[in-house]
């Protein structure tokens, strides 16, 4: 066929048979096919091929498939059962997720309410009001906070108090220095309602809960030098001291002081108020850690150690024996004495934490930048930036080069090992996809 004798190409004949030509073009093709034997033959052959293809029939879809599908549809499509359900109610996430979320939220609310009710009944049972000591009451009144209530006296606490009194008595008798850590700063009245020792110092009152208070303050001040002087004055006025203090006086930046202050517990609240006057308080947090139980354990262990020591000393004085036995007893006494000293130190540290509240202070100057005429010019800064940029570019290139020098051989090795299998797998996969 050529375009001279056949103005209609074979594909057009096929398209005509398929009804894919516009009506005008279909008419011209029809006229041509009527008078052209070749094209008529082609049309007949194509029609014959179509008829042959049409003989390929497919068995009917089994009924069991249909019923299984309908069952699946019913299971998966609940809204379909109710055509009246508006689609806007279903929303973009469907009904089932909404129901699940609602159920979970309801369960959460129930659990929360249950926990609150249970918590209240528990507190009502174990947190009966008890009279607070004058020291604690005073502390709370001054600081504007109420000391945390503790459960009613239990048997263990009663034993602990008895032990405390005994230990105090033993320590006094042994002329132990129980208040060394607080020497020079004095013990405040808040913790000083207990019995006095030989030096007239007041031992802590262990009938009251032992609470180690910690306060954190972040203050912004406009007049930094004056605030610094006031800080020193506050420490002196309230018999406190700085356990740690770091001052930052760098130029062209905000000056600051980070300090860990120790203030007698009885004067902690007033000291905090005084510190707040240094400037604008940005953040404040207060916490109290009850160490009563910890102290009770320590006192009990201390008492036992004292008794052991007493018994050992009695053995040493009353019994006679070999030199080796005597030496062994003396060694044991020394060991027990060492333990006593260590526990005494721990006890003092605990009591010191109660006697002295801790204030973590962060005092920062409200810095106003000054116009600095000595800063480098714009051209100098651009030059420096350009030099830095080139240096960084060179460094990154060098880093890349070093990386490839270091990892290149490994990458090449694995690439050589994997490239052939990968190529074969990909080729096989492509052939298989094309085949089906």
């Amino acid at each position, binding site marked *: 066929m050529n375009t001279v004798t056949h103005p209609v190409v*074979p*594909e057009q004949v*096929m*398209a005509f048979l*398929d009804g*894919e030509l516009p009506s005008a073009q279909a008419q011209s093709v029809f006229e041509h096919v009527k008078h052209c034997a070749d094209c008529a033959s082609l049309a007949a*052959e*194509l029609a*014959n*091929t*179509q008829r*042959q*293809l*049409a*003989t*390929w029939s*497919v*068995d*009917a*879809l*089994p009924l069991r*498939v*249909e019923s*299984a*599908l*309908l069952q*699946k*549809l019913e299971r*998966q*499509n609940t*809204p*379909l*059962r*109710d*055509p*009246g*359900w508006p*689609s806007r109610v*279903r929303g973009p996430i469907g009904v089932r997720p909404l129901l699940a979320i609602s159920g979970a939220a309801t369960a959460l609310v129930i659990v929360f309410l249950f926990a609150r009710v249970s918590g209240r009944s528990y507190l009502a049972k174990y947190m009966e009001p008890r009279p607070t000591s004058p020291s604690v009451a005073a502390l709370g009144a001054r600081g504007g906070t109420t000391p945390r209530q503790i459960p009613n006296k239990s048997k263990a606490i009663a034993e602990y108090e008895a032990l405390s009194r005994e230990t105090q008595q033993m320590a006094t008798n042994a002329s132990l220095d129980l208040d060394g850590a607080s020497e020079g700063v004095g013990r405040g009245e808040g913790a000083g309602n207990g019995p006095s020792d030989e030096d007239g110092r007041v031992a802590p009152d262990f009938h009251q809960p032992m609470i180690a208070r910690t306060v954190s303050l972040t203050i912004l001040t406009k007049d930094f030098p004056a605030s610094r002087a006031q800080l020193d004055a506050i420490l002196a006025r309230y018999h406190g001291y700085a356990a740690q203090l770091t001052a930052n006086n760098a130029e062209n930046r905000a000056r600051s002081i980070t300090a860990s202050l120790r203030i007698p517990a009885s004067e902690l609240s007033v000291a905090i108020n005084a510190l707040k006057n240094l400037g604008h308080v940005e953040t404040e947090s207060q916490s109290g850690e009850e160490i009563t139980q910890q102290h009770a354990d320590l006192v009990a262990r201390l008492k036992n150690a004292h008794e052991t020591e007493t018994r050992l000393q009695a053995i040493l004085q009353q019994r006679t024996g070999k030199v080796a036995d005597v030496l062994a007893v003396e060694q044991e006494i020394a060991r027990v004495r060492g333990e006593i000293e260590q526990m005494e130190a721990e006890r003092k540290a605990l009591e010191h934490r109660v006697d002295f509240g801790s204030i973590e202070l962060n005092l920062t100057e409200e810095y106003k930048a000054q116009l600095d005429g000595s800063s480098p010019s714009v051209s100098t800064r651009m030059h420096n930036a350009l030099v830095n940029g080139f240096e960084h570019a060179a460094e990154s290139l060098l880093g890349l080069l070093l990386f490839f020098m270091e990892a290149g051989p490994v990458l090449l090795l694995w690439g050589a090992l994997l490239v052939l299998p990968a190529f074969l*797998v990909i080729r*096989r*996969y492509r052939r*298989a*996809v*094309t*085949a*089906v």
Partner: protein
Amino acid sequence: MLAFSQGSTEAFAELFGRYKQPLYGFFRRRLGDPARAEELTQETFLVVLRSASRYEPRALFRTYLYAIGFKILRAHRHRTVLRATILGLRKPEQAPSVLEAHDANLAVREALSRLDSIGREILLLREFEQLSYSEIADLLRLPVNTVRSRLFRARATLRDILAAPAPQAAPTKFTESEEHA
């Protein structure tokens, strides 16, 4: 379909009744395993059901349905081939013409299996799914002119194969899985 997307059960029943057999035929003519064809038919209708709320009448529902079916078929083929290539579990599924050698239409199916894959797909879509050239072009993402020329070539090849004298039939070997299918 619009009525179905608004929740009408009757509309879906009508769609299902109208298209279940053509869709099953679509899969059955392309897969050797009838059970797999049934499974993919179900899957296609499930997809239609799940995406009913997002349906937009931009084309005929028939085109929409076959587009979904074609995607599912393609995904199934890729899965099968990948499994066979990587894991070596079984051979990729064969076309029905190879499997059903005992059938009376062996000549037609054998001739179809000798066409190239694109030509065969275009021819099947045109002859059995009755899609227009433009619908086939949309489905296969080919230009309409390419569809027309490939279709003509496929028909001409098929005509020549069917016109040629039948070769001596060799006994067809079945794999174990194919025999079960």
